[in-house]
């Protein structure tokens, strides 16, 4: 070749790509997904398959119809589908609802705002809230795990009245709840995997979970119960750490996660809604641009010279 390539430096790049990051998140969520199939059998598997495939199909169709470059291969829609599925109650009706949820998450919340990196709200959290508001009777009925469909209340719902499930059952996910929000052990394992792989940083999950524990202790509740109950684990590790809808700097992440903790603990203590995590996420998502604006990093060599 006599003609040489002329290009701007740098001429080498790291091997990490968007799809590799998303694949890591999928890997991290796999144990939780498998555990949910164990607890809730084929219904769970069907919800996951339906949710993931509808998310991919909706993104494909959106790109096709709006004549945009295809973005499905970055796998972010698979992650959204997986998280959405894990947020659904283990009922047969969820199979249909997950299609509606996928439409809300991908088309309305993500693609209409400009696709990956542009959406303001966490797609899965927004879709869950949409479904809860629209189909509340189907979204708040929970069945006991390994029970063949016996309806029961979630730990957070029984918290005020009856006897609580044991910490061990809550840790292992052997309580009622949506597909993936109950099993702290697999969610934590996946979270550690993501931190080790440097896909997420520790600031958001640790601050979020820590502040919920602290506040519930101050409110006179059992902090360990608060941490293990409801969607806090999946929310703190997988949804609050979504790059697009969380702040960019370390300082911003602390503020964001502390805000989430305060909101979640307050909703659980004072509110009547059971959707503490999802509402907090949406509220704090809206504040991200503001947080980003006030938490810029200090430029090298500044403030040294008048």
């Amino acid at each position, binding site marked *: 070749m006599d003609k040489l390539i002329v290009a701007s430096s740098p001429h*080498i790049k790291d091997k990490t790509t968007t799809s590799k990051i998303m694949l890591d998140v999928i890997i991290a969520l796999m144990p939780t997904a498998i555990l949910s199939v164990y607890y809730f059998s084929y219904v769970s598997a069907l919800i996951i398959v339906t949710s993931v495939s509808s998310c991919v199909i909706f993104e494909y169709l959106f790109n096709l119809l709006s004549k945009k470059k295809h973005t499905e291969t970055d796998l972010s829609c698979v992650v959204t589908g997986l998280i959405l599925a894990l947020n659904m109650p283990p009922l047969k009706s969820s199979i249909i609802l997950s299609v509606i949820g996928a439409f809300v998450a991908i088309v309305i919340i993500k693609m209409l705002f400009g696709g990956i990196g542009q959406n303001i709200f966490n797609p899965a959290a927004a879709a869950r809230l949409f479904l809860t508001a629209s189909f509340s009777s189907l979204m708040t009925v929970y069945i006991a795990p390994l029970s063949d469909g016996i309806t029961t209340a979630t730990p957070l719902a029984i918290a005020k009245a009856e006897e609580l499930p044991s910490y061990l059952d809550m840790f292992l996910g052997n309580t009622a709840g949506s597909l993936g929000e109950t099993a702290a052990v697999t969610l934590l394992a996946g979270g550690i995997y993501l931190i080790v792989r440097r896909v997420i940083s520790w600031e958001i999950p640790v601050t979020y979970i820590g502040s919920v524990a602290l506040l519930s202790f101050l409110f006179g509740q059992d902090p360990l119960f608060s941490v293990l109950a409801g969607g806090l684990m999946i929310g703190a590790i997988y949804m609050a750490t979504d790059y697009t809808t969380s702040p960019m700097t370390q300082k911003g992440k602390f503020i964001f996660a502390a805000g989430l903790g305060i909101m979640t603990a307050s909703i659980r203590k004072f509110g009547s809604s059971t959707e503490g995590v999802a509402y907090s996420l949406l509220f704090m998502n809206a504040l991200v641009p503001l947080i980003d604006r006030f938490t810029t990093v200090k430029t090298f060599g500044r403030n*040294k010279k008048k």
Partner: protein
Amino acid sequence: MITKFKNIKGGVTLPHKKDTSEIPTEILPIPKLVEIPMQQHIGAPCEVLVSKGDYVCVGQILGDTSKFVSAPIHSSVSGIVTQIKDVILYNGSKSISIVIETDGKQTVSPNISKPDISTKENFLKAVRNSGLTGLGGAGFPAHVKLDTKDRTPDALIINAVECEPYITCDYRAIIEEGSEIVKGVRLLLDKLAIPKAYIAVEDNKPSAFNLIKKLTEEDSRIEAVMLNTRYPQGAEKMLIYALTGKEVPMNGLPIDVGVVVMNVTSVLTLFKYCETGMPLVSRRITVEGKGVEKKGNFHVVLGTYIKDIFEYCIGDIQKTLKVLCGGPMMGVTAENYETPVIKQNNAFLFMTQEDLDFIEESACIRCGRCIDACPMGLMPLTLNRYALAKMTEEMEKHHIMNCIECGACSYVCPAKRHLVQSFRVGKDTLKKAKVKNG
């Protein structure tokens, strides 16, 4: 003074690929033709002082100027000036080049004699006369850097970091000419009345560190410092921060925090000039990449065409797709093989398809990896948006001019965004807007 921080802010860990480090330096034969541009440094270009048909000797001045920020350019060969032509340099700027047909005799100019370096003024004059510019890649005239006016630096930092992959010419200089380098450091300390010198090496070059340590054992004024390996630690401001914990102010100079930094090969070149009077006419260059069979370091006379090096190193013209002048992180691509070697070239990398993994740009996912990687405390993803939209006010507010174009952000970006490229364009847009608005 030195707080032993040993770390820079941000940065990235790169594959070293320093496979040429243990190959002894070879001397490249004098080519038939050399081309010497009159702009090989940051600052004013030189005016041509010879005419077509002149016979020139090695070390003879070909171009000079009365401007302070500049450095004279000498003939690297003996032979006849056959052409004086307008050229466009590989960095895109216009210049004049002197083409010399060599006679292969390498006759040394009769004017070459040991310079007078008795006083500081004479020493600085000698530095200018040596034609020395920053040989680490920046090409900033050495006498400007060393002339700290009435401020005496607390320390002299010798940059032997060589943090870019592939490049090993500074390392070979230490291994092969370590004692001359140490003598050069002593000379600088004496002449500029600096109390202390630190020679900084990264811990991926332990033999260079041990050699310097051994050579400087007796001298309490000189200390070898081993730093963690991290890119871009070799950048002047980063190195100062890693060693002292001090930040050179924006738009400031190293002397503002009491130090002067010099590249290790620059010190060696300066020492040789003070000993012999032979100015900067040749240098050690790393040749690497899958496009050439013969790899290693070579003593090359300035003005040698890349094609001569390429041929000598048995290059495969079919396989070579990209020629980098410098390292893979900050190097500039040569447009063709008729590009001459200039003072600041420390490496030529002949890259093939295997070395180049071009992936298309995709949307920013706001992961923030670029913020963590930026050693200058900038927000590359935000700046990228402003630069692409030509939002000059925002660019300035977010300190785009503070970007050192190290490429760390582009390197880590999972969406493979062309961040640095957009900042180069953005800086230019900002400069033009400022000129326009007075």
